[in-house]
């Protein structure tokens, strides 16, 4: 067994007709069974990386470089081959739980259908196992499970998504902004659920703008800005003693650390360093 | 034009074609009547004449020029449709604004009015009104206006409600803008394109309805030609001179089709 599950090497993403670089030559690797967090602010390209990884990049974007997932390179894989990975090898945990669940299907069924069609369980068994998964996450399978998504709170819906993630045979989970729009309490419980995933033996790639999430999850992290990774390493090391001025600024900008805006010269220095290649991204970040 | 920018590239050709046909139809009905012979001049000695230089599209059962009647009928149908659409839009937008802006009791009343109007089919109402005032242009236009407005009313109301709930409108209120100002600057500008698209599609539907009424025998007083009435008149001669039916039928269909060609991509573009 290879210890490194995902190895991204010199991945860059650019928009097709204009050849504008949106993500420039990003490299990092994720170890099997460990969490990895990608931190960055809006428009820094972190979501594009997740999309390139799962193969849902918009048609006018193209990726170069390599994404080695348990060996083979995913860049340039056909749609059909991609689909074979979905749910079976990798799983994307979507941003907004309520919108990601079918509004007209009972949630327990949405969990059980994965067991049924991906793991080949009998309908009855699948339903029973789905119930177990749901109650393992602290919900009542008989009451909450029989509800439709609109009846459940955002946090509960997120648990259903996690139950689905656990139900799939996929070992690699990509969580895109799992705490977006949640207030403090809910954010903490979401992080606990993600930790739970890791404990269950899954490998997690978490994409977030929230430093606290990264800190709580632990593992390795990478900080992105304007389509590039500015700093990476183990979570505590990067967050407690950041080297790069942007990381430092970001940490200081959080309310807990005094909420100091990132100094203008830090951003402009990076701008000149990368010159025109990432200009669109930079602007959007300001 | 600016509008074209909003239309996806794949449907631009379609919209342009539709607009071109519509322009031609409108132009033909505007200048055509001056070029063709009088549409009500009869010549009983040359009925069902084949197309010739005198009768561009042949002659009908009373020896009248089909081309002249087609062109004049188009002018009549289009003009009546225009009246209906303008009337419906005015009524609908006015009531819709009222309903959406004030809400509450006014809204409930207007919505019931919409229900009642929508439950009554336009063609039957036209028949009723035609009975009331003895047929003619006013009956047709009146009836189709009365039954045509709910669509505009509902969309206006929906947009008004939606815009009203947006923060920038509240910000405007807080900045001391008057209701009239907000209506003009914030709400009208959102309503207009929607109404324009709806009216384009409504234009097509109204032409269909007017021709149905003409077919059922309610419409302009003779000898004024009208597409639907021309079809009904010529139906008995369908087998021997099919073009008498096919020409006005094609005119109706092509015109409505062009309205759809223009309207549907616009509607789709607006939805996005």
């Amino acid at each position, binding site marked *: 067994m290879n210890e490194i599950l995902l190895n991204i090497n010199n991945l860059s993403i650019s928009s097709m007709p204009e050849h504008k670089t949106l993500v420039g030559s990003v490299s990092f690797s994720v170890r099997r069974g460990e969490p990895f967090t990608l931190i960055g602010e809006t428009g820094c390209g972190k979501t594009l990386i997740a999309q390139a990884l799962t193969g849902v990049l918009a048609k006018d974007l193209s990726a170069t470089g390599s994404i080695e997932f348990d060996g083979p390179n995913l860049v340039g894989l056909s749609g059909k081959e991609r689909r074979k990975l979905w749910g079976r090898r990798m799983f994307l945990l979507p941003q907004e739980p309520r919108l990601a669940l079918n509004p007209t299907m009972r949630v327990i069924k949405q969990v059980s259908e994965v067991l049924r069609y991906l793991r080949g369980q009998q309908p009855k068994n699948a339903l029973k196992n789905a119930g177990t998964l749901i109650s393992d996450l602290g919900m009542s399978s008989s009451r909450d499970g029989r509800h439709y998504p609109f009846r459940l709170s955002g946090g509960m819906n997120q648990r259903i998504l996690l139950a689905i993630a656990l139900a799939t045979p996929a070992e690699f989970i990509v969580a895109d902004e799992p705490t977006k729009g949640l207030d403090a309490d809910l954010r903490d419980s979401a992080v606990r659920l993600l930790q739970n995933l890791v404990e269950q033996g899954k490998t997690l790639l978490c994409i977030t703008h929230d430093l606290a999430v990264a800190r709580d999850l632990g593992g390795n992290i990478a900080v992105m800005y304007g389509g590039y990774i500015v700093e990476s390493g183990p979570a505590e090391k990067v967050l407690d003693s950041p080297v790069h001025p942007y990381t430092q600024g970001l940490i200081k900008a959080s309310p807990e650390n005094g909420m100091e805006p990132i100094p203008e010269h830090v951003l402009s220095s990076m701008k000149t360093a990368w010159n025109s290649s990432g200009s669109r991204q930079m602007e959007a970040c300001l | 034009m600016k509008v074209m920018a909003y239309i996806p590239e794949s449907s631009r050709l379609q919209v342009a074609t539709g607009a071109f046909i519509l322009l031609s139809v409108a132009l033909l009905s505007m200048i055509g009547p001056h070029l063709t012979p009088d549409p*009500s*001049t*009869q010549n*009983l*000695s040359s*009925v069902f004449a084949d197309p010739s230089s005198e009768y561009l599209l042949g002659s009908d*059962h*009373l*020896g009248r020029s089909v081309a002249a009647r087609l062109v004049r009928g188009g002018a009549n149908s289009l003009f009546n449709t225009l009246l209906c659409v303008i009337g419906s839009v005015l009524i609908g937008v006015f009531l819709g604004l009222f309903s959406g802006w004030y809400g509450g009791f006014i809204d409930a009343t207007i919505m019931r009015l919409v229900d009642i109007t929508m439950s009554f089919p336009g063609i039957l109402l036209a028949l009723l009104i035609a*009975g009331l005032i*003895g*047929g*003619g242009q006013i009956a047709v236009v009146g009836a189709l206006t009365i039954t045509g407005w709910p669509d505009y009313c509902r969309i206006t109301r929906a947009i008004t409600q939606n815009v009203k709930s947006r923060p920038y409108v509240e910000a405007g209120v807080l900045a001391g803008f008057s209701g009239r100002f907000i209506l003009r600057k914030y709400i009208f500008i959102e309503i207009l394109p929607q109404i324009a698209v709806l009216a384009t599609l409504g234009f097509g539907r109204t032409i269909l309805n007017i021709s149905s009424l003409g077919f059922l*025998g309610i419409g302009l*007083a*003779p*000898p004024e030609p009208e597409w639907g009435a021309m079809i009904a*008149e010529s*139906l*008995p*001669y*369908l*087998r*021997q001179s099919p073009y008498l039916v096919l020409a006005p039928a094609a005119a109706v269909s092509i015109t409505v089709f062009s309205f759809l060609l223009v309207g549907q991509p616009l509607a789709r573009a607006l939805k996005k």
Partner: protein
Amino acid sequence: MLKKLSVIFFCTFFVLAAGQVIASQSDNTLVVVSPWKAKGMDPVISGFIFTRMGCIETLATSDGKGGIEPKLAKRWSVSNDKMTWTFTLRDKVLFHDGTALTEETVVKALSRVLTEKKLFKGTPVESVTSKGRDIIIKTSSPFAALPAYLSHYSTGIIAPAAYNDDGSVAEIIGTGFYRLVSTNGKTVFDFEAFDKYWGKQASIQKARYLAVPNGETRALMAESGEADISLTLSATAAERLQETSGISIISTAIPRVRLLKLNANLDFFDTIEERLALSLAIDRKGIAKAVLKNQKTAATQLMPEVSLWHNTRLELLVYNPKKACRLLEKAGWKKNADGIYAKGSKEFAFELVTYSSRPMLPVVAEALQSQFAAVGIRMKISVGKSTQIPARHKDGTIETALLGRNFGLVPDSVGTINADFGPIDSRGSWGALGWESSKLNKLIDNYLNAFNEKEASKIRKKITAILQEELPVIPVSWYDHHVAVSKGITGVKLDAFELRPYPEGVQWAK
């Protein structure tokens, strides 16, 4: 659960509804298609369907030549004072429910129409009684046309069991060769041959009457072979079907006239010259040929050839626009700058009211419009409902109207002539307006007293001469009745007065 319930509910509802609509297929059935649906199940209202399908019968009927022949009455006679009629009923006539035809039933049926309802204007019937097998009808004045009236469908005789307690009619039980089996919404009537019919039995066992108001649809049904007899087709449809294999067209002239009704109280029509000028401006032959597809229907006088009232010695109506102009100028009209005749500032311009329930009328009106325009007369057409005409006749606002007038309601047209041209105080609202002739009134009185055909014929000629000369209404064209008959049947004869049953004598072709 909810889902299933609603699905079940909807399906049952639809199946039930569909089951009631979709009945059995017709085979070996004589299908008659006509524009007229029944208005109610009562001979007084919708007897035309049942008499013409041979289901109910009247005391007398048309002989097809303008005369009257016996039906349920085997003979009749009139007393010397010409005021008491005796009709002797035929024996051994059975109703479809098996009961026998009795005098009481006949008295009941006749008095409903003749004395209670006074359905026929100007029929002076006082009482209807019976004596043995004789029906005695007393009139207040001599009324020679009574037998003709007793051939009208509304005097059809139905069985005692057909009436409700309150005297209204519950069902149709007649004495004819076809028995009514079922109806579907008053537009479809299914009949079966009645095996105890007193006369010649029907040779086709089943018949169906179907009302299809759209003329073009009727023509198409004939063409597709769905209808054996398609009635009242348009001239163009008839012309077209003539060339279709498997169909023959029977066209008969009927005593119905398209005429221009004038309000002679108006300036435009108050002199004979003006009315004649209008008449001369009409190219009847052109209209008849181009629009009605039969030049022979151009009216040269009010009454068509098929009528007893047709007068061969009249000076015929012709087309002469120049003479029309001369007459108008003589009457004081001068052409104005627009080429329209005018007296001072008042143009010769009037409104014509017509209706579309009889299909050719609006077309003829348009033809008239253009012919009048050619002379210098402006006419506006208003197409509405037929009832506009009597209503606006009554309040005097009508100017002109184009209408189809049936002078063959009963084979003798005197009733209609009286109602249209007779004394103003008893005149109906369809006929002449603002015109009266005391000479004509006297002649009508004389005619009702004339029980001798020779004398009657003389009076008829005088009456029609007055109408031709004074033109209180302007005849435009006569009617042809076009019927498409499938080649699958033989023996179809059409009665110009539309009284005898269509299926009479009809057989499947061998």
